């Protein structure tokens, strides 16, 4: 029995390696990283914002989705940190849409958020159960997002569905060159 232990460990490592292989294989495409600028002409109308930048940075399974929002002189930054390896809880989960609707993030409540790489790492899928406050009290929205890197790596499309909305929200982005993004 004792003599078989190394062999079992080797087998376990092998199986673990096999299990992790798909994750390694579908890690995010590096081209997704960086600053993306929304193209208003090709996007769902922003309500309550005049401009939006999306800053994506992936580190292993962790992906930071930062939103740099502008409304005239006012600037707001909000980040949703997701993880493709495990579900996470995010307080004040940021939604781009509908600043002109009385639909608020429920105070101190966390959204349950899962994420996964699809399409050989060219698409990031995010699914969230978002706790909200409306005029009638607390409720929850099921939200589905896909961040799709388009051919060439310089354009990105974000498609968002809500369990409470029959019309998808579609935002087109163009990559901001690295040097310009530093300014």
């Amino acid at each position, binding site marked *: 029995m004792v003599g078989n232990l190394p062999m079992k460990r080797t087998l376990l490592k092998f199986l673990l390696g096999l299990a992790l292989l798909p994750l390694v294989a579908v890690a995010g495409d590096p081209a997704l990283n960086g600053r993306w600028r929304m193209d208003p002409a090709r996007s769902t109308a922003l309500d309550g914002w005049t401009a939006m930048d999306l800053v994506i940075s992936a580190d292993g399974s962790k992906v930071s989705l930062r939103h740099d929002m502008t*409304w005239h002189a006012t600037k707001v930054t909000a980040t949703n940190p997701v993880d493709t390896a495990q579900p996470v809880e995010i307080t004040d989960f940021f939604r781009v849409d509908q600043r002109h609707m*009385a639909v608020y993030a429920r105070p101190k409540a966390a959204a349950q958020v899962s994420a996964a790489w699809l399409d050989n790492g060219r698409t990031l899928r995010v699914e969230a159960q978002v706790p909200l406050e409306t*005029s*009638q009290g607390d409720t929850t929205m099921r939200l589905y997002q896909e961040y799709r890197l388009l051919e060439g790596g310089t354009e990105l499309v974000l498609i968002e569905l*809500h369990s*409470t909305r029959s019309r998808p929200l579609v935002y087109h982005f163009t990559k901001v060159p690295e040097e310009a993004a530093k300014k």
Partner: protein
Amino acid sequence: MKRLTFSLTLIFSAAAGLRGADAAPAAPAREAYVMHFDSDWKIASGLPEKVMLIGLQGLANRTAPRFYIVHAADFPWEITGPLKEFYERKHGVHFTELKTAEEALATFARYSKGYVVWDPAVMPTMNVAYTIAGLEDAVVVTPALIPLAARHGLKPIDDLRGRYNGQTDAQIYTDAKSRYWARCSHDKLMLMGGHRGDIRIPGIADWGVREKMFFHDLSANPIHADELALEKQFFSELNPGGTIFGWHVYGKDTEEQHTTLISTYGLKMEGLQSLPNLSFNCQIGFTPGFKFTNHHHVTSEQKLTAQAKVYLSFVQSDGIGIGVWTKPGRGRIPLAWGAIMGWVHFSPAALEYFHESATPADYFIGGLSGPSYMYPNHIPANRFGLLMQEASDLMKVLDERIFEIMDNSAADGNVGNAELTKETVDRYYAAFPDAAGFINGYGPARTRDLRDTRPLISYDYYIDPRRPREEVTADLNELIALNAKRPYFLLVHVRESNDVNSLVEVIKQLTGPVEVVPLDTFMKFAASNQTYVTRYQHPDDPKHFKGY
């Protein structure tokens, strides 16, 4: 967005309002003159002549309504044309057209004692010149217009060229304060803000000149500490119940900052800086026998029971004159209108014109937050009761039962919160015992209450006129889905210049059992079944601007 006054004290002001509706009108002018303005307000081209003519209007209208201006179709206030026709039709005013500045000076130079020169390269000199114009009966000219003034026999009274070169706005207005403020009105102050850059639209300057106001464009932004300190001096030296006319300066500070500051002193805000013809309008009263009669759809005592459906009601609050009153579609859906209550004092014919042309679907409400535009969370407790008594008296004159509140002191457009504290809500319920209910917000808000049979409902949605209608439809349907209990009370703010016809098409695309009802009916239904959560401003609510 907003409005103006006459009064020396709050009590006088309210009494004047009551007089306005009950007594015989001021004697109408039988003869008057009119000019038609184009849309060129550029400093480098059309502005200097308009600055001169608007100032001249204030002098010409000092003792009688003699000079009226009709603005271009794209001017922010759309009513100048219809109101001129109203004066002709209801008051027998005969207007003679003046086609040029030369003709205007030939007609009205006799009301002036000379001219004051301002320098377009130092724009605050325009405001200093207007202040001097009111005090000295001066025509306001740029150097290029001096020959024109001289041709009509006018002599120089003052010349601001060079006096303020290289000085900051705070330095300029500090000097002007030391020279002129003591002789200016201490009931009214002119905030000549609005556009920066290459245009200005000082449409309200006639009123400031007529009433001998001090003109300025100081900032209420804390980053401009010296300007803010000077403006606080002015506010602290105004008489109690005083009014700030005009509008804040775009780019220097925000509407929220300025209105917060004004409210902190218990003063009233009446706008905009472009509001035209007040020096004329204030002198023509209501037609004999006229009485405001609102289109109420329910009686005060009536009780309604809400059904299991979505009740939708629309409100247009940005001052009727800059709204969609004259555009096609009005009357197709019930729409509540935020009348500018202060016009009882300084533009009664405009209010009469709106009431005369109202359809049964048009319903007038009081506001905004007080007798004029204010942020109630910041009104000093010892001023609140007097101000709201003035507002309540105006509501009675205007036959209004619902009062609109707005407090964006902690907001910047869509960021922060627009909520009322519980203390503020308590004060409103106490101050307006006869009101059928209250509405709150500009953008969406979440202050809600129901006391006895009187709801306080905040806007659940704000329609930006530029938002595609299919997205508006989707937004409203999403709100209906998120607020799944029935009845659901969905109050919608329709921003100025929205197209009513397009709203009709939106309504057709809404899902569920939706009924669009007039605001007074909406409030009665909302009182019958509180499916909305009582809520006030919470300490943890996000604040964009923390105040002064």
